[in-house]
């Protein structure tokens, strides 16, 4: 366990104000490629977003779309090589995370930005007690003594709803159920009161009733601590539940970014439309077949030349196969990478119906009648 270095120049970033005109976390055109024997894998290809305290960003996409790798890159957890930053920047409170030394990053991880993972069993160490694992971060980052850390661990476990915390703190991970383990992970991530909590598919391995508990807990904790959350998931239902902003990723790059309402009610990218059409809806009277997206996601080694979605896009024209689309911004900061994003007629014609648009139409019809 590395001790925190006593260094006079050390600035506790968490306590610094966010510089004027910037955000808590700014990811700016981040590019990270893996250089493998098979070729260059463009795992993160031009990701941009901003995040403020108290906000929740939902990152959605299919498996292999680069959702997790993006946050691992931000945390500096990608092995370089084979990974390499090819451009862009990540700024946390105005400071570039990519330029920080390993020692500085170590202080950021867990203290300023904490992470929870999909499978709580593999991310907890089976040979240490829960209490010891919870204490580790606090002793390292906050300089707590063993006793102080253990006391705080018990408080944290109680806070995340684990009954009989004084006893459970001495238990090992295998003595907890899946939902309980995820609660421990959340307690561990929140131990140092981080600014940003990155949750990588935190509920995918859990049952729906347990999922609802965990989501409720994360929201409660956010209200209490005011931290930002980056929620990575493939489940559009989960993001609809928690997210303020949503980034839809496809083949390593974000195809659309906007507020939750914009993504669900005014989606602009054909891939987002496809995703919304693919999910079974809560239909009332009749069943209609789903509208799947044709084909499979592309290999990231032999990525298509033009728009990555063009081989599966039902609206693709020649330009889509030739040229990569640039992001098109609306006035609200909602952006889309599609060649036809500036054509409102095209979007209106092909957008899937949403509960809002159906209500609007019904109201319009009612008005005429």
């Amino acid at each position, binding site marked *: 366990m590395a001790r925190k270095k006593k260094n006079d120049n050390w600035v506790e970033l968490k306590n610094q104000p966010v510089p004027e005109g910037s955000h808590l976390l700014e990811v700016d055109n981040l590019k990270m490629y893996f250089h493998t024997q098979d070729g260059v894998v463009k795992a993160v290809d031009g990701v941009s977003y901003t995040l403020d305290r108290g906000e929740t960003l939902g990152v959605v996409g*299919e*498996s292999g779309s680069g959702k997790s790798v993006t946050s691992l890159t931000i945390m500096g957890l990608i092995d370089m090589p084979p990974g390499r930053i090819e451009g862009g920047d990540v700024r946390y409170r105005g400071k570039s995370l990519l330029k920080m030394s390993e020692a500085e990053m170590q202080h950021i991880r867990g203290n300023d930005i904490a992470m929870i993972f999909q499978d709580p069993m593999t991310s907890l160490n089976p040979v240490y007690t829960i209490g010891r694992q919870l204490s580790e971060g606090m002793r390292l980052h906050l300089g707590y003594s063993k006793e102080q850390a253990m006391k705080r661990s018990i408080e944290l476990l109680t806070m995340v709803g684990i009954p009989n915390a004084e006893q459970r703190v001495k238990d090992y991970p295998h003595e907890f*159920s899946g*939902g*309980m383990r995820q609660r421990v992970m959340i307690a561990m991530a929140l131990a140092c009161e981080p600014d940003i909590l990155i949750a990588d598919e935190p509920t995918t391995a859990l*049952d*729906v*009733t*347990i*999922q*609802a*508990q965990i*989501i*409720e807990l994360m929201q409660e904790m956010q209200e209490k601590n005011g931290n930002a959350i980056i929620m990575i998931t*493939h*489940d*559009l*239902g*989960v*993001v*609809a*539940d928690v997210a303020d902003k949503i980034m839809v990723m496809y083949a390593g790059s974000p195809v659309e970014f906007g507020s*939750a*309402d914009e993504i*669900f009610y005014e989606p602009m990218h054909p891939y987002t439309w*496809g*995703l*919304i*059409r*693919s*999910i*079974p*809806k*809560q*239909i*009332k*009277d*009749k*069943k*209609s*077949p*789903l*509208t*799947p*997206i*044709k084909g*499979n*996601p592309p290999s990231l080694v032999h990525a298509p030349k033009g728009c990555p979605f063009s081989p599966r896009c039902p609206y693709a024209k020649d330009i889509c196969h030739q040229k990569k689309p640039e992001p098109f911004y609306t006035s609200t900061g909602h952006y889309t990478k599609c060649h036809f994003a500036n054509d409102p007629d095209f979007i209106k014609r092909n957008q*899937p*119906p*949403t*509960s*809002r648009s*159906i*209500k609007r139409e019904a109201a319009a019809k009612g008005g005429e009648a």
Partner: protein
Amino acid sequence: MTFEKNGEPLLRVEHLTKEFPVESGVFGRRANAKRVHAVEDISFDIYPGETFGLVGESGCGKSTTGRTIMRLHNPTSGKVIFDGKDVAKMKKRELKEMRRNMQYIFQDPQASLNPRMTIGEIVSEPLIIHNVMPDAKKRMDYVRELLDTVGLNPEHINRYPHEFSGGQRQRVGIARAFALHPKLIICDEPVSALDVSIQAQVLNLLSDLQKQFGTAYLFIAHDLSVVQHISDRVAVMYLGHLMEYSDWKTLYDTPYHPYTQSLLSAVPIPDPDVQRSRKRIILRGDPPSPIDPPTGCPFHTRCPIAKDVCSKDVPELREVAPGHFCACHFAEPNPIKTSSVDLGTK
């Protein structure tokens, strides 16, 4: 649209129970060894051409039910009547004959396809085992046709499973299950390993094939929206017990059982407006262990409306409305608003 029951049920499950001994002690099993109560006294029936959905959380015994019906496990007690014969009492030869008409689609398409066989060999294996198409050339033509039906390129007949994506592999599994034109296919979580866009492809394929061949499905899944989409009738399981079953619309519109109600309200709906406005029931705690199940109603430890009687008596599965069965002492209709508008697809 509700499913019209015509004639006799294809499959009747009566008081099916399956327990597994927990091995303990140095000398192997003991007479009084603990048992996992995986499936407890469940009864339902499936009609020809129908899709019967079975939902529940992990460990509730839904897969064990499917496997016991096919007699991949021997039932502890109870009857499984398929096509007029009791599967539980069948001899080896009868079992083989029965399995011509009952096939299985597995969750993990990676693990359920032999990596050393080409997909042509995989799909033609049932035909060889049951010796329905002795002529090799004819058989291969038929396999090509089948691959085409499930949306795979027939030219890929000599490729190996690793050369396909997850969704395509699941199509191979489906082609294999359909090779003998069975009357019933047990689909055990067929889409849960797939991404949403691929999941929709496979669900559509299963519906199309059902229309074409008139096959009945026992569709086992944990994803309620998927089950709702594909099923004619849906049953909810908890800790080995059947809690409630009905046609899909009634079950999702007016669930009677508090467990069904909380399960439905726990599913996040991909529509922020609905999500913000609806009332949710969040259950406390975890499901109890099936090794040491609670007395009385299996759900009473987490149930928001549990009374004394719930911890004493096991509630009977009773008909609360025509065709709607529920096992709760206090079952009363309590419709939950799941969605306020009809989302038709263009």
